[in-house]
């Protein structure tokens, strides 16, 4: 009994239980299967937005749940997302300079 309670308390402290992690992995695998399906099925104008959305969802899920950012101190989130935001800003600006986004 105490072991179950300890496990529950431990899971709560560190984020999720093992079963929770498996559920997240199943969702990630399903999204990956959907991503791959865009190679075989014509999604029309939804192709690009759907792929980018699925990529962002997978990224956020891994960072939030597997890397525990959702449950950890906000300072860790700040350090990581500032680096990510800076990278996005710098390189989107660089690509725009080369007229990458102009068809």
């Amino acid at each position, binding site marked *: 009994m105490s072991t179950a309670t300890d*496990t529950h308390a431990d899971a709560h402290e560190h984020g999720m239980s093992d079963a929770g992690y498996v559920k997240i992995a199943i969702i990630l*695998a399903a999204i*990956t299967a959907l991503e*791959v399906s865009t190679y075989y099925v014509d999604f029309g104008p939804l192709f690009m937005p759907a792929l980018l959305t699925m990529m962002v969802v997978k990224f956020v899920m891994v960072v939030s749940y*597997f890397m525990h950012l959702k449950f950890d101190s906000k300072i860790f989130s700040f350090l990581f997302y500032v*680096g*990510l935001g800076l990278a996005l800003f710098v390189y989107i600006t660089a690509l725009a300079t080369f007229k990458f986004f102009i068809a």
Partner: protein
Amino acid sequence: MADIATHDTDHATDHGHHSSTGLSNNKLAMWLFLGSECLLFGGLISTYMLYRGRVQNGPHPSQIYDIPFTSVSSFVLLMSSLTMVLAVSSAQRKDDAKTNLWLVITALLGATFIGGQVYEFTTFYREGLGFTTSLFGSSFYALTGFHGVHVSIGVIMLLSLMGIIKKGKITGDKAEVVELIGLYWHFVDIVWIIIFTLVYLIPS
């Protein structure tokens, strides 16, 4: 007083060195490192995006990419993130046997991914895409090669960690050490999530 000092020292040893924020310095450093790695991979990814259509010689991306094969590799790396987080979870429960088991499986999955990448590179080379064949080739090999090196370093770290755990040479918080290597491993996975979509699934 001496007892209190001893207790404080033990506490610091058990949970790593903590900063004035109460957070582990090791974890802070790892997150800062991962934030800076975003800039490295951002540069490589944007260079690839810029040059993927620049094919003067050799094959075009759509002629050589094997999406079913790369999809399986991506799935393998994604599942290695699950086994890694299960290793961290086991380490937090102080279950050394399960921690080692999940670390072995993670290292094997990582090695499988690397094997797939070596096979892919070899195939591409035989089909006429060398590092200097075109700007597409250079940027492709630079990006995926750097990622492969990161995965290889991750596998070495996992194997080293297993050896250190078995020898009982971790003096501080064992779970935190496993977690730090786990953070690096998951980062390598999220970089691949981006590469798989932007490089392989979105045509040039």
